[in-house]
């Protein structure tokens, strides 16, 4: 079959942002999968609560302090997160370099707080069904904090190398910021569920 060129793509960019990037779609798909995971565990929690004679099962509700501190901190981190998303979109490498360490700290602090959060759940994962589902939910969210921190550290280091000044890598910074939005937003219903539903 003879070929007839009718379209010249040589003027197209070497990398597209947003929905023109496969990484963006990958991040979206990941959010969909992980969001479904959270929704399933939340449904498990509510199902067990509906069956249980008392809730929480033979334990006091978790202490409010650490969970509330995490919530406040996560909401606060949205400020630098939105700023770094914009800076990466505008390809301002200097500002991205400034904000990457900030986002790294933003990711470390909730992990420290979470350590105490686990300690003040007042129930172990193998105590009863309540303990299992609470540890599962908090652990699942903690996993997301850890993985996003890992991403942020690797990208942060990369921003200070010769690979930083690159549209594709700045797009990765944007996708990473997008994912932090997801980590923060999913925490809000979990916080209400873990801390306020047992106090109803």
């Amino acid at each position, binding site marked *: 079959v003879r070929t007839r060129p009718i379209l010249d793509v040589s003027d*197209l960019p070497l990398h597209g942002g947003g929905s023109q990037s496969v990484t963006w779609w990958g991040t979206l798909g990941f959010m969909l999968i992980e969001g479904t995971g959270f929704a399933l565990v939340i449904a498990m929690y509510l199902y067990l609560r509906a069956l249980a004679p008392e809730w929480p099962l033979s334990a006091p509700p978790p202490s409010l302090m650490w969970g509330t501190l995490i919530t406040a901190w996560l909401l606060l981190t949205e400020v630098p997160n939105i700023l770094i998303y914009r800076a990466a979109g505008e390809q301002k490498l200097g500002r991205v370099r400034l904000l990457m360490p900030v986002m790294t700290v933003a990711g470390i602090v909730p992990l420290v707080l979470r350590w105490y959060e686990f300690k003040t759940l007042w129930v172990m994962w193998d105590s009863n069904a309540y303990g299992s589902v609470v540890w599962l939910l908090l652990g699942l969210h903690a996993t997301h904090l850890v993985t996003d921190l890992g991403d942020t550290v690797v990208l942060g280091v990369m921003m200070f190398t010769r690979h930083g000044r690159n549209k594709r890598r700045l797009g990765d910074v944007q996708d990473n910021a997008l994912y932090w939005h997801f980590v923060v937003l999913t925490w809000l219903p979990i916080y209400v569920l873990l801390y306020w539903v047992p106090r109803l």
Partner: protein
Amino acid sequence: MTGVMVASVPIDTQVHDTYFVVAHFHYVLIGGAVFPLMGAMYYWFPKFTGRVMSERLGRVVAGLVFVGFNLTFFPMHLLGLHGMPRRIYAYTADMGWGPLNLFVSGSAVVLAAGFLLFFIDAIRSAHAGKPAGDNPWGAPTLEWATASPPPAYNFAQIPVVTGPDPLWQHQDEIAVACGLRLDRREILITSVASARPQARESSPGNTIWPLWTAIATSIMLIASIFTPWAVVWGMIPVAIALTFWFWPKGTPEDEA
């Protein structure tokens, strides 16, 4: 489809756990899924082997399978309606199911002969069939525009498609996109609905890191069966492998 039918209580009361159910789901499955599968084999066999299967043997196979299939599974419906249960291998002679079951067994041999002939023809044609050329059927879709069997890259230049039958729009000619670089593995990113080209995304080169990642992940998961600490310590090699996989290699693919 059988499940839909026996969801009706009067039908289920009559045929539940009878041979009718076995008959019906095979009728649906073979007629609905296996026939199209065989059709697809004949249709695309030339594309993936470069050779066509025998037309003459194909007609014999079609006849044997179609006749054998109907004569095997249709009488089984009747056996079920006559009260024969499913999942039995013996019954007393006075049930009266003998003659029809003998007929079914004979028909199954016809059906099996059809399948046997099909496989013999497939094996034979793979190396001794008539050479197919790019498009032995004069078919309209893109796979028939490339060589049979296709090269690993499918097309040297990406075809531009404006309708459902691209090969029928212009005889012996196919519209393509040009301008992708030769020193960088590039694919086109297009808009979701209208497929307008938006970017020349790079396609990564060969790398060993996905394999190391898979091995590290496997070790972590298998070890986690024995101790939960394997998740903690196992994450370290996984994270290292993922980072090396992700880290730019300085190739043209990393340019932007």
